[in-house]
């Protein structure tokens, strides 16, 4: 077996040194009837070539985003990632290093995390960010728990524009922790009366912008109402590229901001691994979940970085910890940071403008198709289209007949909500003018 360096004679020598006759003597604490005699009923070892063949066959059954005019979003976006990023994250020292518990020999990871935290805080317009969460959805769950700790209240109000998966994650966690959740109905038209729901029992109100339907939400009045009754505003961003074009949540009064960082540095990857961005105000830092990297000096006075404020964390505080999180999304955060470093503010702004421009082109063209209605007044790179028929049927037909991935039907996220005629269309810089024309033509033809 190519991954196992010990030879048969090594093994014999080592057993002799230990002073046992056979390997199973080391399993002496396992009750004899539980030690397997037969191998598990699974295939035997294979060479690299055979494994490649098997897995390539599985991969070939999937329609890849790059092979099709592609317009899916809803919390996962296709953007161009510079080749440099994937090369750099495969450097052994980033790829195969552990959580930086020994700072003297992990300054590479730690400095990247410090830079990542700064980039995230600046991007979201917040005072402090952590070293990442698993993803945006679980980060949102953690944000609600954090708000409960700060406010000592246990009711979260979720906007109907929050990604339904995110709302479900919060609902699951809250149900299990016996906390209250008010989940607003899907807010397709942008008319929900969120302010009415915020009362003195409310710990936090969770609002996504751009929301799941693509609309850009004015967070300031919501923050104002929340703060007036002692509640917090948790702002959620599922498409961080939008922040190259729109006002970040921080200056609008958000107390905690959670974002899905996949758009930068990370592939679609069928939904994971992604990277959760998590930021807050400095005064709440000790209630924050997740790892934090901080600046310090070494014994010679040189600047260096360490994991810090770990007294919040599970390995010190155990059942009193602010979160159970241990492993986070280190390498995805590294990829995010590298991509953002390559872009810089100039590149991010340009990338955002290209997304917006491409999305406007498609939205305007679709609005001209008879029977099709674009529901958004505002949007960044994703908007909601009302079709004269079933969106799922249309998407499946276009995938099958035209090889076009036309978007995400709202009913995929909200089955049974009576929104079967709605389609989310995301347009990024990866789409070509031909792709965009093909989508519009195919939809016109299919209707």
């Amino acid at each position, binding site marked *: 077996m190519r*991954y196992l*360096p010990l030879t048969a004679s090594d093994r014999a020598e*080592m057993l002799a040194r230990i002073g046992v006759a056979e390997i199973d003597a080391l*399993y002496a*604490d*396992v009750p004899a009837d539980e030690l397997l005699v037969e*191998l*598990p*009923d*699974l295939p035997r070892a*294979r060479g690299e070539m055979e494994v490649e063949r098997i897995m390539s066959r599985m*991969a070939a*059954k*999937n329609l890849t*985003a790059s092979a099709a005019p592609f317009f899916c979003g809803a919390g996962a976006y296709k953007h161009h990632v510079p080749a440099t990023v994937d090369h750099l994250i495969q*450097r052994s*020292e980033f*790829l195969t*290093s*552990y959580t*930086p518990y020994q700072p003297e*020999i*992990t300054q*590479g990871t730690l400095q*990247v*995390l*410090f*830079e990542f935290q700064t980039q995230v805080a*600046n991007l979201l317009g917040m005072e402090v*960010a952590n070293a990442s969460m698993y993803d945006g959805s679980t980060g949102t769950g953690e944000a609600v728990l954090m708000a409960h700790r700060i406010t000592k209240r246990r009711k979260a109000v979720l906007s109907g524009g929050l990604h339904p*998966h995110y709302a479900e994650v919060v609902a699951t966690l809250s*149900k*299990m922790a016996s906390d209250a959740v008010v989940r607003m109905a899907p807010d397709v038209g942008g008319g929900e009366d969120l302010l009415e729901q915020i009362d003195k029992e409310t710990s936090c109100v969770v609002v996504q912008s751009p929301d799941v339907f693509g609309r850009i939400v004015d967070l300031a009045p919501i923050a104002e109402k929340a703060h007036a009754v002692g509640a917090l505003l948790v702002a959620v961003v599922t498409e961080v590229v939008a922040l190259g074009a729109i006002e*970040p949540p921080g200056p609008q009064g958000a107390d905690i901001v959670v974002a899905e960082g996949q758009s930068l540095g990370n*592939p679609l990857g*069928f*939904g994971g*691994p992604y990277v959760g961005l998590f930021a807050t105000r400095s005064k709440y*830092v000790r209630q924050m979940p997740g790892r934090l*990297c901080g*600046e*310090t*000096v070494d014994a010679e*006075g*040189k*600047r*260096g970085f360490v994991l*810090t404020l770990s007294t919040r*964390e599970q390995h010190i*505080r155990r*059942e009193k910890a602010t979160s*159970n999180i241990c*492993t986070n999304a*280190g*390498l995805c955060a590294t990829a995010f940071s590298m991509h953002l*470093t390559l872009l*810089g503010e100039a590149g*991010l702004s340009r*990338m955002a403008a290209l997304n917006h421009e491409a999305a406007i082109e498609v939205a305007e063209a679709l609005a001209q198709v008879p029977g099709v209605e674009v529901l958004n007044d505002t949007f*960044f790179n994703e908007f909601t289209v009302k079709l004269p028929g079933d969106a799922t049927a249309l998407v499946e037909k276009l995938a099958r007949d035209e090889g076009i991935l036309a978007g995400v039907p709202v009913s995929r996220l909200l089955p049974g909500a009576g929104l079967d005629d709605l389609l989310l269309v995301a347009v990024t810089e990866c789409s070509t003018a031909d792709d965009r024309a093909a989508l519009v033509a195919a939809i016109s033809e299919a209707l």
Partner: protein
Amino acid sequence: MLNDKGRSTRSETTDEADMTASTFTGAKALDVEEALIFEIGRAEVTGVDLPAPKGAKSRLGAHARKAPLDLPGLAEPEAVRHYVRLSRKNYSIDAGLYPLGSCTMKHNPRLNEKMARLPGFSDVHPLQPVGTVEGALDVVAEVGRWLVELTGMAAVAMSPKAGAHGELAGMMAIKAALQARGLDKPVVLVPESAHGTNPASAALIGFEVRPIPARADGTVRVEDVRAAIDDRVGALMLTNPNTCGIFEPEVAEIAAAIHEAGGYFYADGANFNAIVGKVRPGDFGVDAMHINLHKTFSTPHGGGGPGAGPVVLSERLAAFAPLPFVRMEKGRPVLVEDASQTRAGETPYGRLTAFHGQMGMFTRALAYMLSHGSDGLRQASEDAVLSANYVRACLEDLMTLPFPDHPSMHEVLFDDRFLEGTGVTTLDFAKAMIDEGYHPMTMYFPLVVHGAMLIEPTESESKASLDLFVATLRDLTLAAKAGDTDRFTRAPRFAPRRRLDETRAARAPKLKWEKPVAAE
């Protein structure tokens, strides 16, 4: 622009014996100081060429960004150099033995990376029409099949994002099962030797944690469990093999005890690498166990993630598996994403994360599984256990074993009694290992042993590598006993940084870069 803070300045405290010579740049040959991107980047620079937008139209309403973001850019050569220089300040499993107990730092095969990057896996959207991603669902189902088979369990929930998330998923299944039976059993028994994530996960969803004491021989005894059980106990969380590196001899009786009391047995699967293909947790009564794909199944740790923590479930808990899951029908995978798609006997307790889990880790783990096969997996576990016991046999005359009565599994635990009177602590000893070219072992964990040193060599080391490691630890131990204290208390001397002031970092946290105030 050089990093002025990183530059070496001859300080009064510098010991010339240690620092044979200082340099003008602060560099030590290949180890070069590197500034922060905020110090070397410029707002107008970008390392990505994109076409110019026409920018005539806007649908942003009143929400267009007005303020700058303070995000510097680097041109591609600058970015490459920045990250390559930083990378060289990291230890890695690729570069050396990484004996972190409980973390299973084994070799990360590059075939895994290649497979994960096949466009058919990396370039598919989680919400594409299901008919266009059957190969992706095959991967999810296949990894699940291997995990179920290897653990002897009934079902698996694939979506948890890491080990602690898997614990949460499993404990939620237990809570849902208790609720479905109308039982109010809010107490979870957790041994004092458990990983911190165990009590943290349980507490997160409202369980009360009741500790079970550790026995003098490092194991949990069934009579202690029985003594701790009352009507309020709904579950037990136990790591097996445990965090002292011992297979719990009474685990089956412990499982029976908690089952008799109407509760469930959660096993922390962090140490599964010791027993793959040797023992099936389902056979010793486990109801739920997470599996760290980033430990046992070789997906890279990435400097702290991403991980993946699928949780296998017994017959008693299978119905409560969270959404989404893949059900096999007539040999084809069917994705169940919503309660409306469930059948009789499927009562998922909800959703744990957006989308379907850590697909990129599933592809890597599958490449590892297919490569090893059942025979290779068993051999890997045996080699891991053999290597840990070999290290133990080579060191037990000099270092001190807290639990000599049980063989070790894939990791061996020492305590600090052998350092008594030397003035050297476990921390000092660990830092001296850094100077010798090794990443230290896990220190001060488990908490039940004084000055714990938990060594997990894994199956990836050759005998020559183990012999050199052992010789190094022997040299260090003898040096400590001979009074060569400076070697330890001043270590590390040769790492990119000397010991870092963690107290200062925590006292006045500096968690992001701020523009320096202009000099007077």
